[in-house]
């Protein structure tokens, strides 16, 4: 992802800056002016490293300040789009009148219509320019705040302060605009009330808007892996509390996005549901949302990350299977061999740490595949005593769940472990099954919801107040943006102009 790549580059650049400083320090040239650069460079490197470390926190604090306003950036976006649509309809209305009037064969009625519409058209221009300025800034911050900030940090870390002010400006823009723009509705209410428009006539009080993404929803994402780092293909991640169960599907690489619908604040049990087995290992993860989630901005609109790493007694197998047993799997090897129109999968798993001599294993395999053998090796250590097969339905896929019991002679175990060898064959053209249908990491439906809200807000537009409203709206947009940009400039100076030179001051 772009953000983590930019941050990786920034980290490397910070290290390079520091060591360049040391190199200049080392030069055998007794020039005070040259030598004075050295501690500056070293401090710059450390300062950039600090910014990289605080990357998520700074965005989090900025979000928090913005949320104090009671509005979200989405509210500002939706409402501004509503105004924009409103004036477009006004323009369309004017065109329609002109068309109708031109049908009357006396004089020049379209000219008269144009004259009547002059004040409206002036206001139209005001609203279009103001709402487009606001929209471009809101959209760039909603979609790109993490990217802009990461780019800023990377530029900031470039040695010799080559791009430092550009970087500081980008960081300041992302942070300040993200924190300040949710306060725009308050500013606008103030200005509108000063020209005699009451708050009730405004979209901000539209009840359909306030139900749209509130700060109490916490979308997050993460990756499901076993202890050896292998991921399941299209597993189901269940997020459950006493009243609801929300199911999310991972993609082929094990990534899931808990965003549609996103869980609200509360405590949830999170477990993985894969191939007919509900894996509560490590013992049922009880997660407080959002306190136990890790704030990160690698995926822009999913601000939290929660990785599910299962303990070593669970192993995800190819092409879509799972083994859940009672010994720790330390190492796994996987071989495939073609056999006619089928492919034979051989798994050699190194098993250690057994407390009881009884080996219990549950294995979920799609019914299209056939288990060929399940062996404990070497044979002197033990063998399988009982195996039962149960057919289960896993979200519409027929799954064979094998329950296998074996006996292991603990005294004969060498090097602390033994080997499980599991062979099964699957059709050559086996396609991993998607239990919940199409999976995607990005919640595309977010904008579909926004558009639906838009339709409603436009209906409520009151065209009679359009002239005082249009003037007050454009005035409040441009005055607000001016103030925000002044704060952005000063914040950029604060980040870029002062460095904490007290950290290292070795030169006299």
């Amino acid at each position, binding site marked *: 992802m772009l953000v983590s*790549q*930019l941050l*990786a*580059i920034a980290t*490397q*650049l*910070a*290290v*390079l800056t*520091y*060591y*360049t*400083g*040391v*190199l200049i*320090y*080392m*030069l*055998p040239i*007794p020039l005070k002016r040259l*030598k004075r650069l*050295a501690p500056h460079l*070293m401090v710059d490197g*450390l300062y950039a*490293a*600090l910014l*990289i*470390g*605080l990357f*998520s*926190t700074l965005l*989090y*604090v900025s979000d*928090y300040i913005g949320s104090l306003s009671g509005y979200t950036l989405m509210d500002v976006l939706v409402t501004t789009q509503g105004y924009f649509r409103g004036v477009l309809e006004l323009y369309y209305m004017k065109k329609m009148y002109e068309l109708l009037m031109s049908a009357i064969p006396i004089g020049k009625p379209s000219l008269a219509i144009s004259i009547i519409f002059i004040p409206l058209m002036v206001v139209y221009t005001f609203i279009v320019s103001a709402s487009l300025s606001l929209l471009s800034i809101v959209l760039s911050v909603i979609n790109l705040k993490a990217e802009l900030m990461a780019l800023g940090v990377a530029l900031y870390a470039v040695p010799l302060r080559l791009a430092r002010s550009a970087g500081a400006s980008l960081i300041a823009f992302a942070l300040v605009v993200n924190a300040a723009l949710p306060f725009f509705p308050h500013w606008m209410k103030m200005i509108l009330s000063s020209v005699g428009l009451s708050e009730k006539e405004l979209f901000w009080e539209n009840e359909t808007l306030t139900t749209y993404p509130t700060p109490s929803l916490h979308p997050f994402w993460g990756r499901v892996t076993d202890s050896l780092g292998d991921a399941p293909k299209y597993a189901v991640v269940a997020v459950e509390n006493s009243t609801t169960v929300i199911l999310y599907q991972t993609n082929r690489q094990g990534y899931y996005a808990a965003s549609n619908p996103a869980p609200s604040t509360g405590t949830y049990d999170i477990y993985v549901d894969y191939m007919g087995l509900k894996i509560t290992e490590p013992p049922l993860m009880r997660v407080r949302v959002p*306190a136990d989630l890790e*704030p990160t901005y690698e995926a822009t609109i999913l601000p939290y990350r929660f990785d599910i790493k299962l303990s070593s007694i669970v192993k995800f197998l190819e092409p879509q299977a799972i083994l859940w047993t009672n010994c720790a799997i330390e190492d796994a090897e996987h071989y495939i061999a073609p056999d006619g129109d089928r492919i034979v999968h051989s798994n050699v798993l190194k098993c250690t740490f057994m407390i009881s001599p009884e080996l219990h294993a549950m294995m979920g395999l799609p019914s299209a595949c056939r288990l060929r053998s399940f062996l404990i090796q070497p044979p002197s250590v033990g063998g399988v005593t009982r195996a039962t097969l149960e057919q289960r339905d896993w979200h519409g896929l027929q799954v064979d769940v094998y329950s296998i019991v074996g006996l292991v002679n603990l005294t004969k175990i060498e090097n602390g472990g033994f080997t499980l060898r599991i062979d099964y064959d699957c059709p050559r053209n086996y396609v991993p099954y998607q239990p919940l249908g199409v999976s995607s990491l990005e919640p595309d439906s977010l904008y579909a919801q926004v558009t639906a809200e838009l339709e409603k807000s436009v209906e409520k537009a009151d065209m009679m107040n359009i002239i005082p409203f249009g003037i007050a709206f454009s005035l409040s947009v441009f005055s607000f943006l001016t103030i925000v940009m002044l704060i952005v400039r000063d914040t950029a100076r604060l980040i870029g102009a002062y460095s904490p030179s007290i950290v*290292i001051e*070795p030169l006299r």
Partner: protein
Amino acid sequence: MAQGITELISQLTQQVVSAAWGLFLLTWSLGWILRGAPIPFLRVKRAGQDLVEDAVWAAFWLAVGSTIFAAVSYIANTISSSVTGVG
């Protein structure tokens, strides 16, 4: 592409670090040569003294570089966890 850039930068860093170690020996010995030179110019001797001091300090910062970065990221993590825990 980003992979290429990070590799390029880390190679540059390695070159800078090895050049700095090389320069340490040079600066240090040059400093002692100037300091111990049998010429009665105080300014030259002072310059030699400065070079030796610079070399030793810079070697110190070179050696503790990774430790300092670890400390900085530790501080940042501590701040992060305390801020996000409250917010």
